[in-house]
């Protein structure tokens, strides 16, 4: 069942879904933006946004952001440091429960040095302190919201009629159908090129495609294999590939369900490797996606600086897979399934039913594993059930898609031994290898980038060899759009980051554009 991606709440601290995030990105501003290099360490590459410059204190324990004096709210009131102080307070307020809150834990306080200078004070130095201070908070108008109690923010009238300082003004929001914004000609960083952006909420990819074909939309975020082929036939449409930060894989639970001892089948590293060898990933991926889809090497994508196409991978070798299984005592039974004693070589895979592509691919995986005598049962569940069962470790294997952090150290939170705790949401399959942990630790502690990269790559090699998961593919990010749409750089972590710089049509006479969203296509 594919379902709509209507926005949930347009007040940034309360918005949790991607559509809200996209709309918020053109309505509200952050102090600074991550640059196209996606660097998150220090402040290299960051671009000014609401703040046109910043100064570090000599001890690096505070950063002063100097607001653009021309910046103003769409009701005409200028943006002031008090707004920044207010926004920080709201994002950390217990009564608001913003998902950004925990990221701000390293910040001690925020003060207004003068009307256009906001100072962030930190508990301690850290590599990502600028990232957290400058880019996690979207600044809110204190003069409009200041009188609303924190606990009432989620029902405030402002949420359905927001006023920001960004390049676009809010026009209307028709639940389940449309969100419309219009260019603010007085925007302090210059009027955006496209007059009007309309989010047209399409409940499924077919609906989105048909709108694109009929001209009811100019852009759709994700194309499927069949759509790419179809778009080729339309002279007025084009397909544009963009980098992605999402990696898809089948995670093995190395412990038995509920984590009582090792898993009878998947606890054995050799068996996991053999199962990986049974998968012809190239064929599986090209059946579901078009030829542009990239195979994943590990829990990262090619957009990451530490990526190396030469990393070793477990090859597709069904014969060796059978040989390994034979050697480990898994003997082929009459029913076509291998057994070891009375334990069958059988496990189940959690597949999110809302994802057509993962569902299709799981059918192919099932068939490939059958060839080496392993039986895969598919459990179609929706995301809430999937997350719930993974938290309880009640699964054998899960078909996950994970949007990775721009920082390579993120891998530690997901795959190190310390991340695997009962009831936790990360490393739910209990992958544990002290050698990997040590390599990651030394990579994070490395004094220079080159050293760090080489340690990361050694860690990746170890992880891949242990086969805690079958790495399948990187998010196949192909957008469909009219040939007259000229997107600016589409960032791997959020393609809409530069929406204000997009243009449509030729020449300065910019026309309105609409964005058709398709949920459930991943």
């Amino acid at each position: 069942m594919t379902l709509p991606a209507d926005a949930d709440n347009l007040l940034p601290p309360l918005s949790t879904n991607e559509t809200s995030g996209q709309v918020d990105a053109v309505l509200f501003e952050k102090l600074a933006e991550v640059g196209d290099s996606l660097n998150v360490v220090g402040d290299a590459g960051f671009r000014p946004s609401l703040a046109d410059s910043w100064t570090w204190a000599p001890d690096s324990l505070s950063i002063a952001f100097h607001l653009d004096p021309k910046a103003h709210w769409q009701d005409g009131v200028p943006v002031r440091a008090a707004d920044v102080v207010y926004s920080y307070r709201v994002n950390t307020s217990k009564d608001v429960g913003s998902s950004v809150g925990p990221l701000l834990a390293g910040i001690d306080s925020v003060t207004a040095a003068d009307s256009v200078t906001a100072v962030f004070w930190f508990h301690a130095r850290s590599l990502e302190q600028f990232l957290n201070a400058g880019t996690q908070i979207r600044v809110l108008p204190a003069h409009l919201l200041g009188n609303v109690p924190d606990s009432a923010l989620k029902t405030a009238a402002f949420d359905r009629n927001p006023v920001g300082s960004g390049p676009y003004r809010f026009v209307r929001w028709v639940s389940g159908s449309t969100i419309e914004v219009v260019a603010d000609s007085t925007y302090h960083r210059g009027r955006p090129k496209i007059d009007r952006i309309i989010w047209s909420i399409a409940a499924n990819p077919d609906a989105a495609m048909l709108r694109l074909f009929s001209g009811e939309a100019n852009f759709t975020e994700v194309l499927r294999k069949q759509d790419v082929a179809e778009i080729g036939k339309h002279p007025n449409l084009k397909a544009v590939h963009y980098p992605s930060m999402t990696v898809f894989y089948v995670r093995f639970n190395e412990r038995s369900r509920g984590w009582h001892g090792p898993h009878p089948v998947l606890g054995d590293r050799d068996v996991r490797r053999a199962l990986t060898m049974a998968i012809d990933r190239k064929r599986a991926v090209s059946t579901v996606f078009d030829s542009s889809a990239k195979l994943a090497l590990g829990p990262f994508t090619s957009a990451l600086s530490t990526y190396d196409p030469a990393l070793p991978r477990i090859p597709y070798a069904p014969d060796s897979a059978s040989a390994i299984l034979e050697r480990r005592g898994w003997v082929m039974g009459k029913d076509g399934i291998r057994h070891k004693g009375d334990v069958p070589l059988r496990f189940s895979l959690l597949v999110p039913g809302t994802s057509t592509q993962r569902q299709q691919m799981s059918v192919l995986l099932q068939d490939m594993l059958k060839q080496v005598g392993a039986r895969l049962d598919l459990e179609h569940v929706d995301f809430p059930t999937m997350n719930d069962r993974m938290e309880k470790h009640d699964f054998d294997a899960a078909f996950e898609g994970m949007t990775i952090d721009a920082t390579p150290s993120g891998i530690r939170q997901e795959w190190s031994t310390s991340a695997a705790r009962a009831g936790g949401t990360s490393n739910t399959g209990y992958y544990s290898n002290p050698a990997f942990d040590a390599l990651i630790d030394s990579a994070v502690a490395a004094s220079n980038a080159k050293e760090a990269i080489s340690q990361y790559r050694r860690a990746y090699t170890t992880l891949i060899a242990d086969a805690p998961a079958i790495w399948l593919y990187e998010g196949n990010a192909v957008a469909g759009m009219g040939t007259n749409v000229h997107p600016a750089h589409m960032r791997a972590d959020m393609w809409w980051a530069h929406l204000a710089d997009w243009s449509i049509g030729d020449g300065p006479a910019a026309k309105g554009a609409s964005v058709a969203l398709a949920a459930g296509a991943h």
Partner: protein
Amino acid sequence: MRRLLAGRLLQGLAVLWVVATLTFVLLHIAPGDPYSYQGDRRVAPEVVAHWRHVYCLDRPLAAQYACYLGSLARGDLGFSISQSRPVREILVDYVPRTLELMSLGLILSFAVGIALGVLEARHRGTFADWGSRGIALFFYSMPDFWLALMLALVFAYWLPIFPISGIENVIAAPTYSGWQRLADHLRHLVLPVTALVLMTCAAIARFQRAAMLDVIRLEFVVAARAKGVSESAITRHHVLRNALLPIITLAGLMLPMLLGGAVLVELVFSWPGMGFITAMAVGSRDYALVTSSVLVTSALVVAGTIAADLLYALADPRVRAK
């Protein structure tokens, strides 16, 4: 009459209470809660814990139930977590769209159904009678979702005439005049309404045909015919008038079928109505929204049944006299 109404209303309330309790229990004993829905994203556990606490999700089931019934009694339908707005506001947006779809569907399917039924009764036993009944039953037997898919295949893919999703052409709508906008909206309604009408008109046609045949055998019709009144005049003056009454009561009873059909039709045609929002709410374990939308749906059905009962009572002097 008043006692009848009061009694039926009381029974209706009891039914709604049972429905509310059932949905509540069904949702709460199922695995997952509104905060296990984050797609593939991970939200910090302390944030989730905070919200779980705010919405009483960390309290025992009995306490949550008391909390729920209490607010229901106050008329507070709760706060939708996935949509981040009060449930009442969401219903105000979505219920009218379903009502629009349903009332259009109901009116058209009654028009088509009654016309078919009358024609079939007048030409009973002929090829036209058989053919019309056969075709109507053919569509009646068709799974609603598949009928919707086939309509999309034929009228959107093979002959690109009608849109298959949404309520209006969002890119062009702001530039339309009032009439153009209405026309555009109607164009979006065509396929979903057609699916609903095709699905339900068979039942109405069959009921109408049977009711007509019952009346035709009655003495006064036979007498009129003996007097030489023309067949079409008999149909108009005697048969139709007497056969229409029972069919009005059918309208109330058709509601569950239409509402059920509307769920899948809304899903296939991305029509943002009740069925759509209910399925979405179930998918995100949005307890407040699921319970309220199910409650609204069954309230519609209950109201339909009561209306049918009352109409029937009004039409039948024996009941009216009591």
